[in-house]
C-alpha cells in the first residue's frame, strides 16, 4: 500500500503540492489535472524520485526518505519520453540492463530477457538498435525493461502523450492487461475507463477523489 501523510512539496520557495493525504490500495488509480497542477511531482513522490519537503510517503511501510532503493525495486516508473528511458544501444541489452544487479547468472538473465521480449512482441528486434523501433515499440521496450524487475506497482507519467493513436492504444492495452497495480497520470481521459479511482489535481491539491465518471466531470467543470 502507498500512503501519503500531510504531504507537501516545494521547489525552492515555490510550493507545488500541499496537504495531500491518501492511501492508495486500488488496482487502477488515475491522476488527472491541468498542466502544472502537480501530477508529475506527485507521481515522482511515489517511488522516491522526489522526496517530500513536508509530511511523508510510505510504500508497504517503507519511508521513501530512507528506503528509496527498496521502494524503487517495488515501484516501477514509466516516463513520457520513450527515448530517454532506453539507456543501452540495443533492445535486448536494454532489457537485460535492469537485471545487472539481480544476482542471476548470464544464462538465467538471457532466458528471462527472451521471455520478456516475446511477451512484449519485441523478439524480432532483440539485436536491433533501439532507435529503429517505432515510438510505441520504444514505449513497450521501456515497459519491458521495468516489468522484468517484477515490481508490484507501476507508476506511469503520461506514457501515451507522445504517441500516435495506434501506438497509444498498443501501450494502453498492455497497461490494462498487467497484473500489477497501476497509477496512471494522463491527459487521455478515455484511458481511465474501468479504473477504480481517479484523483483530480488543481494547483497542488487533490480537489476530487472519486470514481472515473465523477472525477472526469469535476475536471471538465474546472477547465471551463
Amino acid at each position, binding site marked *: 500500500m502507498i500512503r501519503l501523510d500531510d504531504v507537501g512539496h516545494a521547489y525552492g520557495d515555490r510550493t507545488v503540492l500541499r496537504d495531500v493525504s491518501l492511501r492508495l490500495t486500488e488496482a487502477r488509480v488515475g491522476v488527472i489535472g491541468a498542466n502544472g497542477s502537480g501530477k508529475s511531482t506527485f507521481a*515522482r513522490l511515489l*517511488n522516491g*524520485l522526489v522526496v517530500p519537503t513536508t509530511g511523508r510517503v510510505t510504500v508497504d511501510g517503507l519511508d521513501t526518505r530512507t528506503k*528509496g*532503493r527498496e521502494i*524503487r*525495486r517495488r515501484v*516501477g*516508473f514509466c*516516463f513520457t*519520453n520513450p*527515448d*530517454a*528511458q*532506453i*539507456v*543501452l*544501444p*540495443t533492445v535486448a*541489452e536494454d532489457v*537485460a*540492463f*535492469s537485471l545487472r*544487479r539481480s544476482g542471476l547468472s548470464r544464462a538465467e538473465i538471457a532466458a528471462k530477457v527472451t521471455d520478456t521480449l516475446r511477451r512484449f512482441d519485441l523478439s524480432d528486434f532483440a*539485436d536491433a*538498435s*533501439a*532507435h*529503429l523501433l517505432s515510438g510505441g515499440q520504444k514505449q513497450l521496450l*521501456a515497459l519491458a*525493461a*521495468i516489468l522484468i*524487475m517484477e515490481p508490484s506497482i507501476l507508476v506511469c507519467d503520461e506514457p501515451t502523450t507522445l504517441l500516435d493513436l495506434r501506438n497509444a492504444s498498443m501501450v494502453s492495452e498492455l497497461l490494462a492487461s498487467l497484473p500489477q497495480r497501476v497509477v496512471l497520470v494522463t491527459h487521455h481521459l478515455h484511458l481511465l475507463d474501468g479504473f477504480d479511482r481517479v484523483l483530480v489535481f488543481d494547483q497542488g491539491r487533490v480537489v476530487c477523489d472519486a470514481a472515473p465518471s465523477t472525477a472526469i466531470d469535476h475536471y471538465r467543470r474546472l477547465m471551463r
Partner: protein
Amino acid sequence: MSALGVYLPGDSPLHRAPAGAKLLGLTLAEAGAVLLPGPWSVGAALAVVAGLYAFARVPFRVAWAQTRPILLIALLVGGFQMFGAGVDRALVVAGQLVLSVSLAGLVTLTTRSADLLDVIERGCRPLRFVGVDGARVALVLALAIRAVPVVAALTQEVREAQRARGVTGGLTAFAVPLLVRTLRYADNLGEALAARGVDD
C-alpha cells in the same frame, strides 16, 4: 540501416571471438598503425582491414556508412598536411585516421555492446584503487553510444521546426534550441536511470 558503432548480428569468426581478445587486438593494431612508415604500408593495412570487414560479412552499405564520416575528416586533415608536410606525410596521416576509426568500427560492429562493457568493466578493476568505478565507465560509454541516434533525431527535429517557421538564422538560432533539447533529454535520462536503480 545500422547506426554508427552499433552491433550487427552475425556468426562470423570475428563475431564469435571473445570481446577481450578483440579489444586487445584493437589496441595493438592501433598502436601498430601509428608506427607504419609510409603510404604503401598504410595502404596495405587499409586493404587488410577491408578484407577483415568482408571476412566478418559486414554488408558494403554498413561499412560505408561507418567509414564515410571519417573519410571527410581525413580529407580535411590530409589537405592541411599536404601544405605543411608534403604529399607522403598527408597520405600517411589521413590513412592512419581512416585505419584506426575503421578498426574500432569493426570491433563495435562484431561485438555486442554488453560484452564490450563487461570487458571494460573487468579491465578497469585494477583501477578501482585510484577511485575508478569500472561499471560506471562502461555505463557512460554505453550511454554515449545510445545518445548518438537520439541527438541526431533532435538535430533533425530542430531543423524541421525552423524550416516550418521559415527561420533561416545563423548558428545560434540552430544551436540554442538543440542545446535546450539535448539538456532536457539528459535530464529525463538521469531520472530514468535513477528509477532503474542506477544510483542505489
